[in-house]
Each structure stands twice: as structure tokens, then as C-alpha cells.
């Protein structure tokens, strides 16, 4: 589904990703962990198409298309969804209008007719339930005045509405209490199928208690330096990253 090969990217002349490889197949959940500054959020940003990041090498294939060649909105249309680490507040745009516009834009991209209001509302209610998002938030401005937990649940809600093939969760667990974490995780688990995949970027292991990964990757200095099973995450939680860094730097 997703094949990242030798990806190099920089921001403001500073190279962050230095030859990153990652392959994700349908039905899989991949966790990407790593110390601060290793390039986790850069990976998410590059996949979503943030303009500030310049790709200087490597390739990203998504369902046989060159993802890097597509505009952010086209990537969403193709089925890539990024759950933001810091969801953006948009005053004056109601959450419901926003999501309706997004759903119909994506449907249009996929050659589907716009959703009828009745069908849309039914869909909306079902997905709100999934992440226990209050119906009251629908008429509020996007993310404005939302609590940290509400913002993150709103991200998962949008993901549920847009039905992506690949969900990239950028530190969705940051700033969440344990209840919100559970809700977010169960939302992801409900959405999980044999046809879609998730890349879960996280600093801590605790999210992975609820979203169980098939693979855990350690990102360090712009590269994936170690890949293992979910047990690797536990080991990182216990021992930190230093032993891996030592291992790498010892080798070189």
C-alpha cells in the first residue's frame, strides 16, 4: 500500500529525514517511535504534503501512485489521512459544514455523487458515537474552544467520516488523559480492517496498549534504525532510547 524508499527531506535548509524506508501493507498497524527531534513529525508532515518541507531524495509510492507528486487535497482524495498533533482552530467555520465540505470534496475526487443531507446526517451521528463526540460540537467553529481531548477525538471523527485507506496519527496521544486515550484508540480499532492501514507516530508506549501494532519502528536521526514486534515498544518504555542509539553509533 505504502512504500517509502530512501526518503530525504529538509526544512529551512536543515536535513531531517536521511534515507527513511518503510513499507506498509493493508491490514497492518505500524508504530513509529523515537526520541524528540528524530524526524517523527516530519515524516507525518511530508506524507500529508506540508509545503514547508522539501523532499530532497527518495520516493513514496501509495497504491502505485507517486504520493509526492500529489497536492495535499489529492492525497486525501487518494485515501491518506493525517491526524494532526496540533489540530488547527478555524473560527467562523462550523465543524459540521467543514466535515460536510470535506466529505463531498473527497467523494467528488473519488467520482462519487455528493452525499444527500439525510444520509450525511446518519453517517455523522454514527461516527460521532464512535468517538463519543458531543453533537453540540458540530455547530461550533472547528476546534475552537475544544478541550485537548475533544480536538483529538475530532481528528479521529474526521478520519472516520473520510474513510481513508491509510491513517497517519501524529502523536495523537500527546496531551490526552487515559479516558480520552481509550476513546481515541477504540475509535481507531473500530475503523481498522483488512483493507486499510495505520501508521501511529508516538513518543510513548502507552497508546500501544490500546492500539496494538504489528510492527514497531524506531526512528533516529532521520532513519528507521530498528524494527521489531510490539515487545520492542515495551522494551523502549523500560530502557529508553539510549541503548539503541549506542548500538547504532557503536556500529558506525
Amino acid at each position, binding site marked *: 500500500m505504502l512504500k517509502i524508499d530512501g526518503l530525504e527531506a529538509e526544512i529551512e535548509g536543515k536535513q531531517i529525514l536521511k534515507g527513511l524506508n518503510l513499507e506498509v501493507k493493508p491490514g497492518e498497524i505500524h508504530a513509529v517511535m523515537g526520541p524528540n527531534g528524530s524526524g517523527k513529525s516530519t515524516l507525518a508532515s511530508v506524507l*500529508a*504534503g*506540508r*509545503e514547508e518541507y522539501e523532499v530532497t531524495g527518495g520516493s513514496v509510492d501509495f497504491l502505485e501512485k507517486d504520493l509526492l507528486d500529489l*497536492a*495535499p*487535497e489529492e*492525497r*486525501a*482524495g487518494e485515501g491518506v*489521512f*493525517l491526524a*494532526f498533533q496540533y*489540530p*488547527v*482552530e*478555524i*473560527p*467562523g*467555520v462550523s465543524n459540521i*459544514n*467543514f*466535515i460536510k*465540505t*470535506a466529505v463531498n*470534496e*473527497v467523494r467528488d*475526487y473519488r467520482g462519487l455523487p455528493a452525499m444527500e443531507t439525510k444520509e450525511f446526517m446518519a453517517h455523522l451521528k454514527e461516527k460521532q458515537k464512535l468517538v463519543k463526540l458531543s453533537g453540540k460540537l458540530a455547530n461550533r*467553529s*472547528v476546534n475552537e474552544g475544544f478541550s485537548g481531548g475533544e480536538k483529538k477525538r475530532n481528528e479521529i471523527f*474526521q478520519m472516520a467520516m*473520510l474513510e481513508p485507506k491509510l491513517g497517519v496519527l501524529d502523536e495523537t496521544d500527546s496531551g490526552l488523559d487515559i479516558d480520552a486515550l481509550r476513546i481515541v484508540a477504540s475509535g481507531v480499532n473500530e475503523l481498522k480492517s483488512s483493507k486499510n492501514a495505520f501508521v501511529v507516530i508516538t513518543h510513548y508506549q502507552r497508546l500501544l496498549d490500546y492500539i496494538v501494532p504489528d510492527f514497531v519502528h524506531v526512528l533516529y536521526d532521520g532513519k528507521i534504525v530498528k524494527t521489531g514486534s510490539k515487545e520492542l515498544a515495551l522494551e523502549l518504555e523500560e530502557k529508553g532510547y539510549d541503548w539503541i542509539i549506542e548500538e547504532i553509533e557503536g556500529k558506525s
Partner: protein
Amino acid sequence: MATITLTDKDRFLINQEGQDFSHEAKTFIKIRELALKNLKGLDFPTRKLEDWKYTNLREVSKTEFRPQTAVNIIEEKIKAHKIPNLDAYVLVFVNGFFAPKFSNTVEEKDGDFIVTNLNKAKKDFIKLVEPHLGFQTRAKDQFFVNLNSAFSQDGGFIYVKSKAVLDKPVHIINLVDGDLVASYPRNLIVAEKSAKAKVVVSYETIDSNSALSNVINEVVVAEGANVILDKIQNENSNTYHIGADFATQQKDSIFTINTIPANAKLIRNNLNIVINGTNSVANLYGAICLNGDIHVDNQTFVDHAKPNCESNELYKTVVNDSATSIFNGKIYVNQIAQKTNAFQSNANILLSDDARANSKPQLEIYADDVKCSHGCTIGQFDNEALFYLKSRGIREEVAQKVLLDAFIGEVLDNIEEEPVRKYVDQLIADNFNSKN
């Protein structure tokens, strides 16, 4: 041999003559004579004047505009300028002259309100017109105000009796048809004690290669009255539009004006509000979305003359292409106007490198127990918000439109009549697209 050198102004004024006002009552002729006298000592404002710093009228002074009646006005042409689905009393003026065939007047002497043309009212309702007409426009130093006072052909007259409510909005449609047309429409709106009125005034073009519209709206808001005025300026790109709005409020009154300058070659608005009674509220809203090379200059003045009053001013501007927007807002708080709450804000978004916005918010406060704030911003749409929308599959142009609606919507939400709101939404949406 003596030679007389005519200035541009002299030539311009000569072109405006030839209208016969001799049938008018003396009291109204006096207004015209006084204005003509003032004009003798005045000239076209130049950019040397602080309030005209950004707006150049040289071309107006050199163009042979003159009053002209329109010919062959047919229903079809008027229809296009009505607001769809708006249930209103409609008054139509073409080139400043009343078009009774396309208007519906209400003139019962013992009715709750009068909706007619000003010339008719000057004859039939002289006692209602006389105390108010020209009362607020006596400033000797305003060239264009005096020009309208001297040469105004006609306009709408709306009078709402004490405690009465105008059951439907009045829509005054001002149209221009013909080349080198000078129109001087002038509306007088009087809401007596505790009366209520909603008025929409629109300015549009049937067909013209060049025109000058010099317009005035005079609004009288008596004790406890509530007047809402929506002003839609949407003439063609060959038109110079120079307007002034005057409102005086007595105690416990509310006056709201929504200004929507959408199209013309140049638009200049001078808005003057005097809050002359306690516990009153003035609302001034401007929704401005510009493209092409239009030049729009909004000057507002709120005079807090009495204590315990409130003014809310919000002007929001989106400028595309090489268009220019100017905002110069002044709030004056008199020494006795304690407990004044005055808010003024002007926010501008520039969409292109050649777009310009000049903003000058001003407060002049002589009372010591007041709450006043003012501010202006000039910037672009929030890139983070744009990226967020795009990352959800929303195309760039749709995302921009979503942010536009959110930005301008805050102002447009003050337009109460749904059909008017829809009409204005469409004007703004059209202007949001680049003309280049």
C-alpha cells in the same frame, strides 16, 4: 481685454445646471441656494487633504458628467436589479429620477407610514419633510455633500409614525443608464418615536460607459426608534460613486448600517453618525470584497455626544488583484459622554501582491469614564487553516472560499433579511474570484 479663466470645478458646475427646481417650495429652494453658495467657495477635494490622501478625483473633475433623464426604460431592465424573493416596497430611480411605473408607494395620510419619492413628499407632506431635509448636511466644507444638496433630482422618502412598524422592508433601487450621467439620488428616512424601519438601498447600472453617482442618505432616528439600513453599491466598473450617509439618534434608539461596496470604478463613503441621546446604540458594519482595480474608500465618523451609549463598528475587507481598500474610522467621545462603550475594528486580508489596504482607526476621547477599543489588522488567510482544510481533501479554491465565508460572514450575519443576505453573499462570492 479681460479674460475669464474657468476652473475644472466651474466647468463641472455649469454642466450640472439646467435643471428646473422653481416649482419647489421656498424652504427647499433655500437648501439648494445655500449649497450653491457653499460650492462657490469650495473645490474638488485633492489628495493634499488628510481625509482624501488616498483618493484621487482628478478624472471626475475633468469629465463632462451631467444630469440626464433615461430613455426607454423597460420592465425587463429593471427586473434584473430586484433582490430575488425579497418582499418589499420598491422605489426605483433611474439617473436620480423617480420611475413611478416600477415603484409601489404608500401615501395614505392617516396610515402608519409613508413610502414615496421625495419630490412628491416635498409637495404633499411638506410638514414631515421640512424639519429634516438637509438638517444633517449643512457642513459648509463638504464639496460632494453640497453638490448633492444643490442638484439632487429626487430620492426615496420613508416616514414611519410614532410607535409604528414598517411592515415590510423598503428597497430603494438606484439605477444608471446612459453615458456621462451625473445622478444625485438623495433619500430621507424618518423614524418617529419608537418606530421601526428596515431599508435596503442598492446602486446598480443598467448600461453606462461613464457615470458619476453622488448620493446621500439622511436618517432620522427619534427616541426609542430602530432603523436598519443596508447599503449595496454594485454599479459597473465605469462608475464613480461618492456617497455620504447621515444619521442622528435620539435617546434609547438603535441605528444599524451595513455597507457593502461591491463594484464600481471608485467608491467613496462618508458615514456620519451623531448619537445625540442617552442609552442608544449605533452599529456600523462593512463587508468589503474587492477584485480588479476598484478603489474603495470608507470614512466613518461616530460622534458620542451623550452618555451611556454604545457603538459597534466592524469593517472586514478582502482585497484581490490590484484593488485598493481604505478605511478611516473615527470615534469621537464628547466630554459629557461618560460610560460610553465604543468598539471599532478593521480587519483586512490581502490575496495578491498588488492588492492594497490602508487602515486608520482613530479614537478621540474627552470623557474619562469610557470603554473604548480600536484596532486594525492586515494579513493573509491563515496558512495553517488552509493546509488543515486541504489535508481533508478540500481543494485550494474551495478552502479559500470556506475561510472567506468565515471571515466576512461575521459581518454579514448582521443582515437580517435572508434574501438580502443571499444577494450580498453572491456579490461577495463573485468578487472573490480574480478578474485577471
